[in-house]
């Protein structure tokens, strides 16, 4: 074992040192700050033990001053006192594993080189991903086994908005994964853009990055993290919903080039049962609405057939059609009881008319569609259906192109950014629910590789602590079974306490940026010790605390300023020119 770290002080004995924590008196010419790693070797009678720890708090005190005014007397040169600087150290590892207290008086040194690796348990990790920089400017590594699902998976990121924590952290993580020699070919990423159009430019170089005076230093830091190409994400597919009134155009403003319009055909809407994602409100699940929705969804599926000459459209037969819906033969339009429907509005209109027919309800012919549901419930269902059709306008139409999932995505760029901002909250839920369920279903059918990383912000909206919804069930399913199937959830939220515990508790990697003080006190952050919990209220931009199963203490990690554009205003000139050409020819 090499001990190339310089001495920084001695273990103090005015209070007992313990096997869990101890204090270091800092030498006059040395400096020790919070998050620094230290090592001390104790000559225990039963054999030398090296204790590794991380500084959790630093103190400065005037020894000899016992009253507040003493300091003023000291400053005035009247009272002699000794400036004493100490550091509180939380033990992260003892080597060999004999939990003894370091002896007071033993020299504490900075953990560097091999000792740093041991302090951070890097010697126990077989595959690592450098996920950010520690306080010493060197990479902090994540155990890949706990990220890609081998031993654990899922990432939970918490933090208040506006201090570049959640999205930046998720993006940096994804970017570094895509640069990782072993992982880059095994990773697919689905990112939802829920704020502005920020993520629609991540494939462009960041102008502000290039203008930074510390550019060379930033380059060096990203290189240290394993980034081979410093700039925008190399290969990204952008998806936006159709523009109202112009379904062929993407509904976004700052970028038109290379943005594809997504949607689902009525045929897929029916055969994949996407109707359930129109009833995602927690209140829907409590009422009878979900029962009616289930009946209607089932009945649509039983009668659905493709229609000859109407690709993507769905037709409905007078009665159930046997066999797997995927293998049903296309019918002529004339054979149909209803349709062909080329968009959701038509289908909904037909359904509303059917369910609103009092005669049909009275004779019991509507029984297959609504069971014994009361007329009021059916009425509520149709009203909800109508508003859904209105809000999903354009997303379900026969010429729509679905975002490829599973095997269909083989030739797609590894990263897909789905732009949701401009959609109504209702439609956002529909899209997220549909894509999550499609992703998960594709994995259930297919192979574990490539591993699908799903980056989803505002998890509290999709998997709230209270209530239930189809999306929440899908997310819990992903959280519980996803890692073995190859779906890894990178979830972000302002407050983990508002997210379903099944989702947050299954995350192997927990990250937090600056937290609201009240939020930081909640039990969801039990993985933070009191000192880091206090720190979490003060974290600066780009700084996060990371906990991973392989390391028993949260570590402070910093992400350098991103070289990819994170807003339209950051796009480098070359990128803007391309946009202008695309827009104006």
């Amino acid at each position, binding site marked *: 074992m090499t001990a190339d770290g310089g001495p920084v002080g001695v273990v103090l004995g005015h209070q007992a040192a313990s096997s869990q924590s101890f204090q270091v008196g800092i030498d006059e010419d040395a400096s020790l700050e919070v998050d620094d790693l230290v090592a001390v070797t104790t000559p225990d009678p039963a054999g030398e033990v090296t204790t590794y720890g991380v500084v959790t708090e630093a103190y400065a005190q005037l020894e000899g001053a016992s009253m507040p*005014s*003493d300091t003023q007397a000291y*400053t005035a*040169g*009247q009272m*002699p*006192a*000794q400036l004493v600087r100490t550091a509180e150290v939380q033990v992260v590892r003892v080597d060999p594993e004999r939990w003894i207290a370091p002896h007071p008086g033993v020299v504490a040194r900075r953990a560097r080189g091999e000792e740093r690796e041991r302090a951070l348990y890097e010697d126990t990790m077989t595959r690592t991903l450098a996920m950010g920089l520690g306080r010493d400017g060197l990479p902090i590594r994540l155990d890949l086994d706990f990220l890609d699902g081998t031993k654990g998976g899922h990432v939970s990121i918490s933090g208040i908005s506006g201090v570049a924590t959640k999205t930046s952290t998720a993006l940096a993580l994804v970017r570094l994964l895509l640069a990782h020699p072993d992982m880059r070919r095994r990773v697919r990423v689905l990112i939802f853009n829920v704020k502005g159009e920020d993520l629609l430019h991540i494939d462009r170089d960041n102008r502000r990055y290039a203008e930074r005076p510390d550019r060379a230093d930033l380059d060096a830091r990203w290189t240290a993290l394993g980034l081979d190409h410093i700039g925008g994400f190399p290969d990204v597919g952008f998806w936006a919903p159709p523009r109202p009134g112009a379904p062929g155009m993407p509904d976004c403003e700052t970028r038109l080039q290379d943005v594809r319009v997504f949607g689902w055909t009525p045929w897929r809407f029916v055969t994949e049962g996407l109707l359930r994602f129109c009833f995602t409100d927690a209140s829907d699940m409590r009422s009878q609405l979900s029962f009616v929705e289930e009946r209607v969804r089932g009945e649509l599926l039983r009668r659905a057939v493709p229609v000859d000459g109407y690709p993507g459209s769905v037709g409905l037969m007078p009665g159930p059609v046997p066999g797997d819906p995927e293998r049903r033969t296309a019918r002529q339009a004339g054979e149909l009881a209803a349709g062909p429907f080329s968009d959701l509005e038509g289908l909904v209109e037909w359904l509303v008319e059917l369910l609103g027919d009092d005669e049909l309800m009275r004779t019991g012919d509507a029984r297959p569609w609504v069971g014994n549901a009361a007329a009021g419930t059916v009425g509520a269902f149709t009203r909800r259906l109508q508003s859904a059709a209105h809000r999903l306008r354009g997303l379900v139409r026969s010429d729509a192109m679905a975002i490829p999932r599973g095997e269909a995505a083989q030739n797609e760029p590894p990263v897909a950014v789905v732009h949701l901002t401009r959609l109504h909250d209702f439609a956002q839920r529909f899209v997220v629910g549909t894509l999550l369920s499609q992703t998960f279903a594709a994995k259930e059918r297919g192979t574990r590789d490539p591993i699908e990383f799903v980056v989803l912000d505002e998890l509290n909206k999709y998997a709230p602590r209270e209530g239930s919804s189809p999306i929440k069930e899908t997310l819990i399913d992903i959280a519980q079974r996803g890692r073995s199937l190859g779906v890894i959830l990178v979830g972000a939220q302002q407050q983990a306490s508002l997210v379903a515990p099944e989702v947050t508790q299954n995350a192997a990697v927990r990250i937090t940026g600056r937290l609201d003080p009240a939020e930081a006190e909640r039990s969801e952050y039990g993985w933070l010790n009191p000192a880091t919990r206090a720190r979490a209220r003060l974290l600066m931009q780009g700084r996060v605390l990371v906990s991973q199963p392989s390391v028993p203490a949260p570590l402070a990690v910093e992400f350098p300023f991103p070289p990819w554009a994170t807003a339209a205003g950051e796009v480098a000139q070359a990128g803007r020119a391309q946009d202008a050409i695309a827009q104006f020819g």
Partner: protein
Amino acid sequence: MPDPSSRLSIHVADPGYGPGLDASEMDAADVRTDVEPVAWAPLRPRARPAGELLFIDGAQQIEAWLTVSQADDPRPLAGVAFAVAAGAVRAGHGDRAEVVDLHVRRAAICEGDRCLHLPPAGAFRWDPRAGSGRDPFALARRVGQMRGELELQLAERWASPERLIVLDGRLSFVRDTHGPVVGAVKSHHRIYLEGEYGMVVSRLAVGERTPLFAIGEDRLSWYQRLPGVGEGGWAGILRGEAPRALGLEAARTLADRATAELPRYAGRPHRDPRAPQNMVPIMTLEGRLRHRMGDRKLALRAVRQAAAGAWLEDAAPDAAPLPVPAALTAAA
């Protein structure tokens, strides 16, 4: 309602530190008031740039009283194990006051000519010393003497023409020193100035002193007032001493410097029961010395342990002063 002009001025002292005023003063030397050729009135030294000051103080701690019985002698010998410490605070030379020198010595002595050797126990080591008389107070006097020796060594080491050395207490051991040393006496066991001379003391303002007066053959002395407890009577009065061997002019200079510069270091009543005469650097230094002498209970335990292996030796390693390492220790 009493007449305010006849209001009394009362100096209040903490009883924990002995009587503030005691007529049974042992110092019975003659006092002469005609040494400084000035009129008997408060003197205000003219302002001059503050120079460097060095405060020196010592402390002692009796750690065990011993009774040494020998197989061949029916009469047991009294002995003592103790620690003495002395330190120096440098102030006024820059921004901050600092402890620049601090020494702790442990020794064991017993009555008679023979040295008592105690083997080291833990971190405790005692120098064997001889030379205590056989009267009941001799041991205690010897302890005080060793503390004085340590203080004196520091005073000699730090002596420098520009530096005013302020010793805590009377100049008992350094009356022959030629360096710029003054003693700062807190308590007034004996009132040296009587009658109209004494009235001048009551009239002193902060930053003023009485003219010099001689005590016996070897000391010149003055009274001065420190701030913080009012300006009446004997409140805040400090008595300074300088060796007469320096000569009148040098003594006047030292008295003037002390009068001008010591008020800045006056103790504050809320902080120190002996304020203002116990000056802040001295108070802090004393606390530090007591702390550095170590835990008395721990010392007693060590003496008990060492006593099992103790022996008396005839060859007295003479009563040389307690050794002080040549290298100066920085702030403790």
